[in-house]
């Protein structure tokens, strides 16, 4: 159940392939669902040049691990891989990856949605957008996607 926080760029597909080759038994999982969140170059109609993600690393790791453990009580999951960037990020960069390997697809979809939803609401990360000389802390992401729908 690896949870990885890192302050440098990652290629989600390369990491998924490496993880699968190293950790998953071929033929074990019938369903894999991945969510990749990336930095868009626009936010609420304004262009975004870059962003800095601040984090409270030990607590973030602990909160994400706890969300993963809660999901493993509800759904049959063979493997997790969760990655989250921090530090300076550019548009197009992957910010977060949540990958689930399971026997059945409903389980994989439900667990993946649950983890990204709860990660967003619990893990201590904060985003500051940069545009020219303007730096703006995002105030909340609770209205972003509909609270309660995971």
């Amino acid at each position, binding site marked *: 159940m690896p949870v990885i926080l890192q302050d440098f760029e990652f290629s989600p597909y390369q990491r998924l392939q490496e993880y699968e080759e190293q950790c998953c038994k071929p033929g074990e999982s019938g369903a894999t669902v991945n969510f990749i*969140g990336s930095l868009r170059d626009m936010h609420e109609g304004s262009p975004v040049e870059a962003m800095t*993600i*601040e*984090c*409270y690393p*030990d*607590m*973030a790791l*602990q909160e994400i691990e706890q969300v993963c453990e809660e999901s493993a009580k509800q759904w049959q999951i063979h493997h997790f891989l969760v990655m*989250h960037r921090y530090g300076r990020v550019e548009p197009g960069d992957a*910010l*977060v990856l949540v990958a689930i390997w399971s026997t059945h697809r409903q389980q994989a979809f439900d667990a993946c949605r649950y983890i*990204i939803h709860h*990660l*967003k*609401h*619990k*893990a*201590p*990360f*904060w*985003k*500051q957008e940069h545009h020219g000389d303007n730096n703006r*802390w*995002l*105030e*909340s*992401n*609770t209205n972003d996607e509909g609270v309660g729908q995971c």
Partner: protein
Amino acid sequence: MSITIKYFASLREAVGQAEQQCQISAVGCNAAELWAQINGSIALPDNSLVAINKNYASLDARVNDGDEVAFFPPVTGG
């Protein structure tokens, strides 16, 4: 007692530092009182969150000797 206080994001900027060690004498001090003692001149925004020893806590949770207390705005990760 000795407390480590951490600040993140906009609260870090408001306070002007990321972390401080402090000695406080109050017995039975809670997180809100800790903020008031240390940062009396800066109002703690209503939507602020508190973690004690890396677990979410309420503002009236008691702070004990050796605790790490973190103050931060709503989280925006993911």
